């Protein structure tokens, strides 16, 4: 059974069609990569799933609940977590407090006390290896640490679906490999479905995703197992342009 179903979703900004009749399904625990060049509609699609925008057409279903027009703060308790392309920490709060917010208002919302949330935060901090930064204001972390913190914050929400927006952008290849194996392990342990959005760091996609959805100018052009998708001539064309004419 599908965890998330996106059916014929269209999102326009004035005359611009940012997402054009896109449909796909994600099963529980599945690892999906969404790739596409700049401006292909990836972030808009993420915003439609997390509730930042409502689509003009189409339907989004999560766990058998129609969430098409559900406000974003009601989606998190259902089990949708996300990270941002440019990390958005609650800068003045400590790393521990940031992550505790995830525990408090995520899928455990209403079930955990402040103290229990802080305990969850402590455990999550250990998993991402940020112990030494525990009491630092999140705004003072390095960009990579901020990304880790955001992932920890999203994991503390105990999501069923985790949307990761360019989680590896700007990272050193070694860090990417480390991150990839970390995320993979967590996803398997906690049975979280992950949708990772990537512009061009194929190293990350190939390393993790079981399936890849390719967007181009707002439309889905390919939806296939990773290797197959990345070798698809349409994908090559989107990224590299037409192959030169053979003489």
């Amino acid at each position: 059974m599908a965890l998330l179903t996106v059916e014929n979703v269209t999102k326009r900004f004035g005359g611009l069609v940012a997402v054009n009749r896109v449909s796909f399904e994600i099963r529980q625990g599945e690892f999906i990569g969404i790739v596409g060049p700049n401006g292909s509609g990836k972030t808009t699609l993420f915003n439609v799933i997390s509730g930042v925008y409502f689509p003009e057409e189409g339907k989004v279903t999560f766990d058998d609940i129609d969430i098409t027009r559900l406000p974003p703060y009601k989606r998190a308790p259902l089990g949708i977590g996300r990270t941002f392309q440019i990390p958005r920490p609650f800068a003045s709060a400590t790393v521990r407090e940031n992550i505790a917010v995830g525990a408090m208002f995520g899928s455990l919302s209403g079930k955990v006390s402040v103290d229990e949330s802080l305990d969850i935060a402590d455990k999550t901090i250990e998993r991402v290896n940020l112990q030494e930064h525990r009491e630092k204001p999140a705004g003072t972390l390095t960009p990579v640490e901020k990304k880790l913190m955001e992932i920890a914050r999203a994991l503390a929400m105990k999501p069923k679906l985790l949307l990761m927006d360019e989680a590896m952008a700007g990272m050193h290849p070694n860090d990417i490999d480390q991150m990839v194996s970390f995320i993979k392990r967590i996803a398997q342990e906690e049975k979280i479905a992950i949708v990772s959005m990537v512009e061009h760091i194929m190293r990350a996609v190939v390393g993790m995703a079981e399936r890849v959805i390719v967007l181009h100018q707002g439309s889905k052009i390919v939806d296939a197992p990773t290797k197959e998708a990345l070798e698809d001539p349409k994908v090559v064309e989107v990224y590299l342009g037409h192959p030169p004419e053979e003489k």
Partner: protein
Amino acid sequence: MKKQIAKYYPIIPVFAAYLVLFLIGRNVTGTWQLVAMLLFYCALGQAFNIFLGMTGYVDFGYVAFMGVGTYGMALSITRLANIEGLGAAVIAIGFLLALLMSTLLSLAVGAVALRLRGAYFAIATIGVNEGFRFLIEGARIWNGSEGLIFTAQLNQILGRETASALMTFWADIMVLIIAALAAFVTLFYMRSKIGYALTALREDEDAAKVMGINVTKFKIIAFVTSACFAGLVGAASWALKTPYVFPPEVFEIHYTIEAIIIVLLGGAGTLLGPVAGGLIYGISKYYLSIILPGFQLLIFAPIIILIIVLFPEGVIGMLKNRVKNSALARFII
């Protein structure tokens, strides 16, 4: 259990400061006036901090809640004075009415204005304050621009001596209690999910929403709480201390500006900040007007600018960072 109590340690310096103020006022002759003024500023800061400090939204119409609180007390005294057997209960009813009216006004304003952000919110709230004042004056509600004067009724209810003691002493004690209560509620919020939600939305409202926080709900909680305390401060400090109310005085934007300065001087969003801000602001205002009568504002403005530049996070914000790794950190937030 001990851990739970330790969470409330930061209330100690706040209460200690209020106790010292009280003792100075009682024991040093001729200081009660000054102490009363300082208590008023601390209470104002403490109340406003719950909204301005914790959400980061600047409400330029804040004084309106003090205004309606003042009217709540005034209406209770003027309308109920002739009912036999109520006696001092009129004052209690006045506080309840102040609470009710500031709650209703803040709910009405909050439901609309809190959808706006930044400068738009600030402008909308100025509009509410001015609009409310002109509504009272123009529609001649509650005696319109002639205001309400109720010294006679206060004397009638309590007797001349008690009424005079109320105006010169007990009203200030009530302000002190309101300030202490506001501080306690601030700390309670900080330690609960409300505080975490407010911090998150202050730092990044859109990220907070995606994290599952119903930002509108939490903004309204902070707004209404803060407005309630403003209403109580108005009822105690303005209605009971000076038993009259005129619209231009109680909707004077000047008090909102003072409240903003106090919160920022002390450290927005800190618990001890409003006390420090209230004391610095009140003491410098008081002594500058004695030393340099007529020129006080000329000196006052640069002093405030200097403090804000030197301590952008406020005096307590700076102190909090300084003591971070020491034993004091448990007490200063």
